[in-house]
């Protein structure tokens, strides 16, 4: 490690106002040789004071948790590292536009010869910020307008109002988010929303008005979420002449459910990862806390990625789920699973697999879907190191099945049913990664195992989304 100077300590690499922690960011300070100045590298130092300049609305007690570690530093390198970490923590709170760090020797009364003062110069975000963006969901686009109070009560609470207008769904929602001081991953959020969706594959229109309360906390290597949700759901017919099965589902239901989700994500990126795995388990119990819908829903998702030769990645994923009605009422169409389309089993039309009535897909109570992908860079690697890196080619093999279960038959019969008439498809395509959240695909698909009633998309299929099989 080289020599580091106390005085002219340039702030650590400055990012823009973007939030989020980049673990690769902690860089070793530069190596320089300027023998005239005092070398402090190995000297014990004491951090005497930490100042935070530029605070307006933010309460100081919130920040003391974030910067507490700086006081524990024993050497200059340590001070720099800890200050940098503290800076990242401050930025992650999402309440500052800019955070700069200044480390200086202590001055004034009571200053120790090896004392240091650390000053964080922060610029707070405005009281009210607005945003406008476009979003890609699962094969739909939407325009989102948002208003945010980034630091509503002075302790990194966020109050957000969002309006989104999409090709299939229009929604607005108000949400309040509060992290635990000093432990940003442990947070609560309260939401109030209305979503109006149209599902042409089922000739169904759904309007949801709901409230939810959510508690998220880390536990060992997992992230756990506990949630209560109360939703008033209104189902109606989309077309003038839907099938009678859809007509029968029309009307109002009230769902009150408790759910738990657990996620272990060791992937290096959520879109087109090179390594790592994902396990997501979600379970929902509805009807226990009121409402007129009762069911138990379990589903999980596993994804494993492995880097191979020549920058190619082999990825395998498996999804599966089950919804069990509780009591004598059958499950509602809004609670069942749907399969098919460019984000699940490619080569089939969007959610157009499985039980149907007169061309309206009714969803199923159990499903599984698996996918095997080989991602490779574009052939001949055009624009390598730049724009070309956003693209990949892939070869895929997807399979899955969706069915209703008659709960009198026993688990063996259910498994047999799920193993019968498996839909599968294979093909290849090009995909484009959009930021770190979405991806677009253009595939040539060959659907196989098509059952009567399934709608297929033989040949070229376009897909956009955030969650892919």
């Amino acid at each position, binding site marked *: 490690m080289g020599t580091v100077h106390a005085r002219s300590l340039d702030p650590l690499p400055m990012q823009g106002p973007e939030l989020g922690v980049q673990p690769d960011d902690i860089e070793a300070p530069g190596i320089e040789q300027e023998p005239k100045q005092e070398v402090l590298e190995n000297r014990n130092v004491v951090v005497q004071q930490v100042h935070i300049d530029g605070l307006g609305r933010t309460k100081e007690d919130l920040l003391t948790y974030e910067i507490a570690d700086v006081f524990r530093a024993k050497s200059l390198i340590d001070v720099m590292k800890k200050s940098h970490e503290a800076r990242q923590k401050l930025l992650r709170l999402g309440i500052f536009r800019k955070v700069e760090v200044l480390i200086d020797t202590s001055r004034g009364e009571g200053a120790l010869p090896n004392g240091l003062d650390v000053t964080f110069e922060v610029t707070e975000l405005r009281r009210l910020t607005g945003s406008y963006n476009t979003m890609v969901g699962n094969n739909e686009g939407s325009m989102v307008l948002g208003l945010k109070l980034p630091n509503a009560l002075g302790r990194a609470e966020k109050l957000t109002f969002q309006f989104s207008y999409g090709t299939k769904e229009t929604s607005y929602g108000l949400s309040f988010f509060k992290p635990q001081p000093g432990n940003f991953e442990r947070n609560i959020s309260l939401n109030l929303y209305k979503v109006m969706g149209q599902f042409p594959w089922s000739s169904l229109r759904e309007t949801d008005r709901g409230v939810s309360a959510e508690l998220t906390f880390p536990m060992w290597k997992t992230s756990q979420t506990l949630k209560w949700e109360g939703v*008033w759901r209104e189902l109606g017919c989309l077309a003038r002449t839907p099938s*009678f099965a859809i*007509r029968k589902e*029309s*009307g*109002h239901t009230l769902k009150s459910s408790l759910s738990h989700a657990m996620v272990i994500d060791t992937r290096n990126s959520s879109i087109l990862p090179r390594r790592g795995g994902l396990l997501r388990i979600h379970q929902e119990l509805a009807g226990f806390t*009121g409402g007129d819908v009762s069911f138990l829903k379990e589903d999980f998702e596993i994804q494993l990625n492995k880097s191979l030769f020549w920058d190619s990645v082999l990825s395998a994923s498996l999804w599966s789920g089950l919804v069990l009605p509780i009591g004598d009422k059958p499950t509602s169409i809004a609670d069942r699973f749907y399969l098919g389309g460019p984000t699940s089993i490619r080569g089939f039309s969007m959610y157009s697999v499985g039980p149907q009535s007169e061309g309206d897909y009714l969803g199923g109570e159990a499903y599984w879907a698996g996918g095997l992908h080989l991602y490779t860079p574009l052939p001949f690697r055009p624009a390598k190191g730049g724009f070309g890196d956003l693209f990949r080619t892939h070869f895929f093999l997807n399979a899955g099945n969706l069915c209703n279960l008659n709960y009198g038959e026993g688990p063996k019969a259910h498994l047999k049913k799920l193993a019968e008439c498996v839909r599968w498809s294979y093909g290849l395509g090009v995909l484009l990664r959009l930021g770190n959240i979405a991806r677009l695909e253009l595939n040539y698909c060959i659907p196989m195992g098509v059952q009567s009633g399934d709608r297929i998309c033989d040949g070229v299929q376009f897909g956009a989304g955030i969650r892919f099989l």
Partner: protein
Amino acid sequence: MNVCVFIPTAAEPWPENATLYQPLKEDQILLSDCASSLAVQAYLRMCGLPVQVVCRANAEYMSPSGKIPFIHVGNQVVSELGPIVQFTKAKGHSLSDGLDDVQRAEMKAYMELVNNMLLTAELFIQWCDDATAAEISRPRYSSPYSWPLNNILAYQKQWEVRRKMNAIGWGGKTLEQVYEDVSQCCQALSQRLGTQPYFFSKQPTELDALVFGHLFTIITTRLTSGELAERIKGFSNLLSFCRRIEQTYFEDKTKNTKLSKFV
């Protein structure tokens, strides 16, 4: 009236499994819906078309026009008496074929009178009279739903009906004025009926079905006050008209169980 437009594809025969949908009979259905449903049932019985009555809590939302009742015949769904009459006509069943143009116009006018007066009066009493709304209409209407959805839906419905009443100028009416309107309507019907067995002499028409549906439901339904039924009971020929239709078309199957269906 919100008419559901449909185009009959072909004069297919009336299927055996034709179904009529209405809200839950014991706990949910309200006077006005019950009357409309009974009118359609009477009409289909007069035509000799069998229909199975199915009660579903979400019947109102299943209906293409949002109104009770509707029938599901083959793969077609038709709601309310007017469109159902047209629908059966397209299938070759009609009660008003024997009427001349003048009589047909008269029949339509009386049907409009019943819809505008009796049906509106029923809706008014159900939703605009606070006592009836609080004791009968809101609890019954929302009985299939759990809290707090039951309150939301009941008040939403009440608000919707009240807005409609304001739109047609009934908003400022008192209960007494509404009873008076019902009396006048019955007076007109009673005079037209006279001593005939049906409104157009010997054969029943859709008007008879409609009048029967409403009058029979009103006199057999207990509300917070018996005033509405009392007004009708003053017209003896209408009462015997109701009894005649009940005996001719309903007696064999339902006996007198109908009398207690609406508490």
